[in-house]
């Protein structure tokens, strides 16, 4: 593999990162209302959330991407490959984040609600001052694990022509068939290089947050 080849593949880093981060952001945000529906007292909302989570998690990501890009995209709504990949991965992330949030909610001592109510905090203040900071601490490790998994899943965006790392590696390999091993090994190394700092930042943040509240 030539230096130009390496540069070509490295040029895909930006789309890989953009698709991953946007899908994660979308999912982290959409996960909140889905989680809220799941723990809601309303049976209808709860049922809706359960069905939504099952559907979103059971269908493979690649099927979601095809469904969005070829299915909806070719019909009554035009959608480009990048938005299609972001939305498809984003809604799957939403279902998973909703479950991560729900698990974290259970870890919060019920006395925290008692105290918030007894002090007369508004629902909004209870959410933003008491709940979210504690949820953030609890969800950080599992959310990071999911984010790194998502980084790798973003490779399937190559199937609909998003020019990210895997797509460009595949393109190059089809041109230089003999170098396929090096090309894909290089692509793999790039994924490792991106995920290492993610994991490191999360670990440092987690350790700092823990140190503050540790005995």
């Amino acid at each position, binding site marked *: 593999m030539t230096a130009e080849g390496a540069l070509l593949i490295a040029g895909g880093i930006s789309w890989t990162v953009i698709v991953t981060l946007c899908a994660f952001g979308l999912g982290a945000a959409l996960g909140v209302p889905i989680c809220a529906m799941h723990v809601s007292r309303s049976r209808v909302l709860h049922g809706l959330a359960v069905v939504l989570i099952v559907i979103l998690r059971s269908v493979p990501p690649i099927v979601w991407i095809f469904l969005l890009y070829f299915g909806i995209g070719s019909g009554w709504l035009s959608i480009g490959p990048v938005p299609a990949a972001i939305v498809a991965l984003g809604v799957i992330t939403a279902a998973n984040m909703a479950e991560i949030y729900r698990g974290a909610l259970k870890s919060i*001592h019920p*006395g*925290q609600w*008692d105290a918030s109510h*007894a002090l*007369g905090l508004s629902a909004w203040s209870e959410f933003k001052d008491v709940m979210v*900071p*504690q949820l953030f601490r609890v969800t950080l490790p599992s959310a990071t694990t999911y984010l790194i998994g998502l980084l790798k899943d973003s490779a399937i965006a190559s199937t609909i022509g998003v020019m990210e790392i895997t797509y460009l590696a595949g393109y190059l390999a089809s041109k230089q068939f003999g170098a396929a091993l090096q090309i894909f090994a290089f692509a793999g190394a790039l994924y490792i290089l991106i995920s290492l700092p993610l994991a490191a930042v999360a670990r440092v943040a987690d350790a700092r947050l823990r140190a*503050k509240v540790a005995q």
Partner: protein
Amino acid sequence: MEQTAEARPIVEVSGLGKSFGAHRVLEGIDFSMRAGEVVAIIGPSGSGKSTLLRCLNQLEQHDEGVIDICGIRLQAGTPPPRKDMNDLRRSAGMVFQSFNLFPHMTVLRNISLPQERVLGRSRAQADERSRALLERVGLAAKADQYPARCSGGQQQRIAIARALALDPRIMLFDEPTSALDPEIGLEVLAVMQELAEAGMSMIVVTHEMHFAETVSDRVILMADGRILEEGPSAEVMRRPKAARARQFLQAVLNR
């Protein structure tokens, strides 16, 4: 001023009842207290003491009867308007068995945040009041620590300061020393005694018999969701009339 406030009961409960599903936890509870009084509620576990306390500030909704507290009327079955609810939470401070400090905030933030959010005080005003209260409970040096770095007794004193910071008219204590070593519990009881002497209206659910007898003006003895005995502390504790009350007091006083 003081006289007129004391003329009217600060708490008046009549016909209070509460069930969890088929289980009847409170039945026909009637009592009243004047401002400045300290009332201890004692009785065996599961007698409904904590539920009664939690009904008073509506952490639990009662199913029957009327609660009049700090001029707010709470009728069973009709959810109070939001304004009344806010007034209630502001007027009644509560201290829990498990402290329930916010673990992700410093001690100072724990006490200042509710003042800012509920009373609309500025950060500077709130912090000033918080530091004064920390001084009062003997923990001025802990302001910038996180709760996990404080002992149970310290956490409970911080929780008391947090409740006092909202200038409540009455303080509700739900077994404030039950999660503490007997020795550590004393520092919390000392703060409560100081509070009582300063004239705060207090209802204390407790297993601390000495506190009930010496600090509180009156004792209410509950069992099986009812009030068995009620009256001046020494009288109830030393000369109980009901057989069930005698049995309980014998068990806790002669150990």
